């Protein structure tokens, strides 16, 4: 890590200089891709523009970048051993930290976001992980969550139907939403043709409800442009009712964990298998004794005849969901919201739905959808016209706020950024209400329907933007710009810091300093009155203290609402 960060730092130093010279020399680029458009693109497609990446994008263009990202090697999470669910008394210290807390996963999440080459894959995986949610709240071991997060990495550019199937049989999801060990109900009188070895209890409805409501189609019938269909009385039309949920709950019966894995040699014995997909439960005579064999009525009037094998039924049920016409606008709009804007026009959603549907059987469906989202005319251009699109953009979620700021200034970081309490100030992502891989529930950190306070516009991330968390964002910026997150053994090996020394030479010319920061942090969109306000503060600092001038300017921009909102 050390040699890597050193090398990275050196390259970044040179390229930042390049960028500054370039933006100073060439304030009104004449090329097809203007600086503003490039930086905006990186805000949407990565965890934040870096000087290096801006230069690279200028060289290869947006299409070239997307192609490079499509084939970039996938960054992994650390390979965690599978330990017993109950911690052995001998496992303490680092063993406990690494195998019974999310420390390594969360740390690598941030390291990957800060330094990984596969930025687009990671960004899509992170978005998907907030739509098809699994959470530590019922997944206690990090090795179990790793399996799920690796699946999202692997599937980020793949086919949605395949993803939905893989998520469904994933053991971690099985545990989180209770398809694992879900079993049929024994009828009175018992009917072995329907349920051979169930309980006198109903199947668990949890996964059936949430796969429909959150992972695929939502609660109301949609037009392809994302707007709601209405009935003749002007009311929205439900996509399913309680009976359909119960029918799906019977489809999702009979799945159990794959054969147990060997525990670490120091422990001995076996541990539950959260590495492999769930498998079909069979009795001693090879019969699917936990699965409900009765006919089932699914979406859009589709019927399962009953009596089929458990796996065939599951495949048919996933097809029934994944090819429902709501999926394209429901998933497509949320991906737009995660990457580009909380308030896409219906036409934008419609264009993305068309790509989603045309690629329904493509093995690179999601990549093609994301490509369309990022290259759409509504996403591109130097600036967004405020007069015609006042609601454009998205509030940066805490993770994006942290990584964008750090990447812009080529931070050196150990990735320990999820939970931070420095000098009594709580400034980590978790403290800003985005505890990575530990959303409060399957409804994730914020709902796609949340609104901007005092406005009609949608602003999902505003659900985690409060008086408390807005000040914590400012305090994070204060900490990183005016000092650093210090190393603290053993769990913060290097801490996190940025090096502002190469900005110092600009400090004697506040307008140049502010313009360079404007290019890097706000893709050149800073208004004249904002520029003037920052200049007043910068000039209040004696020219003999260039670093304080740089810090003053960087702090004011980083804490401004103009920076909190990605436009």
């Amino acid at each position: 890590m050390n040699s890597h960060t050193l090398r990275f730092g050196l390259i970044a130093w040179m390229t930042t200089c390049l960028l500054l010279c370039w933006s100073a020399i060439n304030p009104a680029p004449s090329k097809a891709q203007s600086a503003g458009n490039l930086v905006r693109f990186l805000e949407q497609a990565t965890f934040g523009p870096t000087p290096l990446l801006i230069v690279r994008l200028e060289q290869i263009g947006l299409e070239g970048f997307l192609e490079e990202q499509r084939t970039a090697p996938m960054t992994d999470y650390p390979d965690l051993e599978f330990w017993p669910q109950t911690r052995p008394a001998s496992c303490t210290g680092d063993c406990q930290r690494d195998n019974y807390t999310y420390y390594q996963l969360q740390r690598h999440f941030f390291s990957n976001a800060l330094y990984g080459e596969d930025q687009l894959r990671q960004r899509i995986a992170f978005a998907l992980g907030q739509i098809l949610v699994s959470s530590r709240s019922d997944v206690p071991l990090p090795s179990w969550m790793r399996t799920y997060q690796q699946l999202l990495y692997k599937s980020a550019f793949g086919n949605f139907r395949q993803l939905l199937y893989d998520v469904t049989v994933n053991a971690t999801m099985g545990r989180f939403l209770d398809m694992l060990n879900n079993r049929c109900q024994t009828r009175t009188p018992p009917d072995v043709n329907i349920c051979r070895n169930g309980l006198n209890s109903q199947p668990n409805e949890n996964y059936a409800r949430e796969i429909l409501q959150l992972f695929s189609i939502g609660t109301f019938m949609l037009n392809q442009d994302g707007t709601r269909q209405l009935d003749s009385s002007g009311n929205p039309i439900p996509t399913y009712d309680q009976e359909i949920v119960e029918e799906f709950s019977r489809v999702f019966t009979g799945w159990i964990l794959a054969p147990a894995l060997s525990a670490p040699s120091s422990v001995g014995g076996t541990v539950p298998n959260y590495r492999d997909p769930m498998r079909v439960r069979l009795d001693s005579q090879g019969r699917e004794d936990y699965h409900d064999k009765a006919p089932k009525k699914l979406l859009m009037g589709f019927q399962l005849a009953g009596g089929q094998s458990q796996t065939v039924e599951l495949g048919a049920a996933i097809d029934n969901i994944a090819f429902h016409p709501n999926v394209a606008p429901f998933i497509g709009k949320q991906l737009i919201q995660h990457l580009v804007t909380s308030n896409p026009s219906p036409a934008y959603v419609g264009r993305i739905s068309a790509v989603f549907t045309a690629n329904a059987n493509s093995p690179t469906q999601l990549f093609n959808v994301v490509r369309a989202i990022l290259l759409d005319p509504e996403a591109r251009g130097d600036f967004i016209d405020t007069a015609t699109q006042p609601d454009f953009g998205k509030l940066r979620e805490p993770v994006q706020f942290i990584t964008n700021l750090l990447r812009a200034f080529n931070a050196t970081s150990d990735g320990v950024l999820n939970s931070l309490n420095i000098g009594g100030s709580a400034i980590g992502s978790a403290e800003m209400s985005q505890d990575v891989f530990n959303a409060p529930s399957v409804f994730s950190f914020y709902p796609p329907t949340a609104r901007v306070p005092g406005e009609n516009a949608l602003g999902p991330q505003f659900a985690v933007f409060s008086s408390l968390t807005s000040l914590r964002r400012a305090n994070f910026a204060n900490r990183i710009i005016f000092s650093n997150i210090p190393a603290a053994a053993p769990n913060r090996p290097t801490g996190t810091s940025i090096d502002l020394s190469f900005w110092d030479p600009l400090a004697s010319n506040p307008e140049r300093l502010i313009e360079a920061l404007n290019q890097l942090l706000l893709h050149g969109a800073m208004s004249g009155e904002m520029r003037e306000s920052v200049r007043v503060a910068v000039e209040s600092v004696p020219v003999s203290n260039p670093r304080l001038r740089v810090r003053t300017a960087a702090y004011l921009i980083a804490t401004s609402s103009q920076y909190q909102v990605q436009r």
Partner: protein
Amino acid sequence: MASTRREFLLRSLGSFGAVMLGIERFGLLNAVAQSADYRALVCIFLNGGNDGNNMIIPYDDYPSYLAARGPSGLAIEQSSLLRTGVVPSVGAEFAFHPSLAGLHTLWGEGKLGVVCNVGPLLERTTRTSYQNRTARIPLNLFSHSDQINQWQTSVSDTASPSGWGGRSADEVGPLNVSVFSPVTSTAGTPIFTTGNLERPLAIAVAPTRLDAALRLDGFPNPPDNDPRYLEMKRLLSLDGGQTLVRGASRVTAAAVSMEGAIRFTGDPPVPPFPLNPRTSLGNQLEQVAKMISVRTELGMKRQIFFCSLGGFDTHNSQVIGGTPGTGTHASLLLQVSDAMKAFYDATVQLGVASDVTTFTLSDFSRTWVPNGTLGTDHAWGSHQFVMGGSVRGREFYGCAGSNATVFPTLAANGPDDTDQGGNARGRWIPTVAVDQYGATLASWLGVSNADLPAVFPNVKRFDPTTLGFLT
């Protein structure tokens, strides 16, 4: 008056300046003189859908409970239950879950009541009108997000932009003598806390000190002459017509302003807090008690607080197999009971026990018939606790349903179940609308009868509009 408090008062005036309309209207000394007039509501939201069916358990009719929940392993042993005595309004004896010892004590002292079978409704709904679809019913029944919004907004047929906590604050907020936010949350800013005018303040929970519950680092104290501080505030007024920028600045500007006031509150002790060991809900209610203790200094006469506790979505392992009095739900109820009891005791010590009413909300109740994984699934109407010196305790409240009492008939496929047939799960159709439950609380807080429809737009559809559980 301690000099820091005095400084705080003066400082509040200075930092709020002209926007401090309340102060201008009443004058600072009046604010102190009138401080005896105080009322607060404290909402505790049980996220995930609390199983009311294992919280309030029939004691006289225990056999039918055992028959429904015993085979799945969810029936709590009768001998461990905390008995209520005969409940006057029902004429039968019930019992609390064994984890609820603290609340059971308050029940015995007449400081705790139960409101039965409450839930979102669009109109009075019966099993018949539900099943033949003549009743209009809330959108997307049994969905977490929808039912949470309906509980918090009281509006069940459309997406409401505000909640009834915030709208109540819109009505009673002008009684306050400062512009400090009348709605304070220790659990983010859910829709309950948002009014048409009032915006919630979210603060850090204990053990963070009250005077650091909002903090802005990196400036001299006071910061008011620091150029960077001044420009940071100026930037919050520049939105360039961009909606999201304006919204973000609205939140941050309020935070910066309120931070300037809260940092002078000190960190008053509020025994019996802190709890040992600390708990999530205990830490929240401890901070609420501290806020209440500085109500006079903050110029508050009406306040609404919001706390929440998650984990109630017990589809799985609600109880530990073989010992149904233990497990996830038992632990959560223990936390609720201990924290609420401590909070009540703190209000007694602060001399405001009769001025503070605490109440629970939750997404929905859970199916009477469990599933096969030691858990329960989503249902509808549930029971809620109301606590405080103004509660007419030791009684069940609600509206008489199909069995002529306020308590539903506990029978799958019975007269209060949405479900029919042999697979019926027992999802009680509410007999009390959220509107009625909330209107009772809001009326007590000071919302006039004439203004109730501004807070609860559909309350007139229900009779009576308020229930009698508060004096």
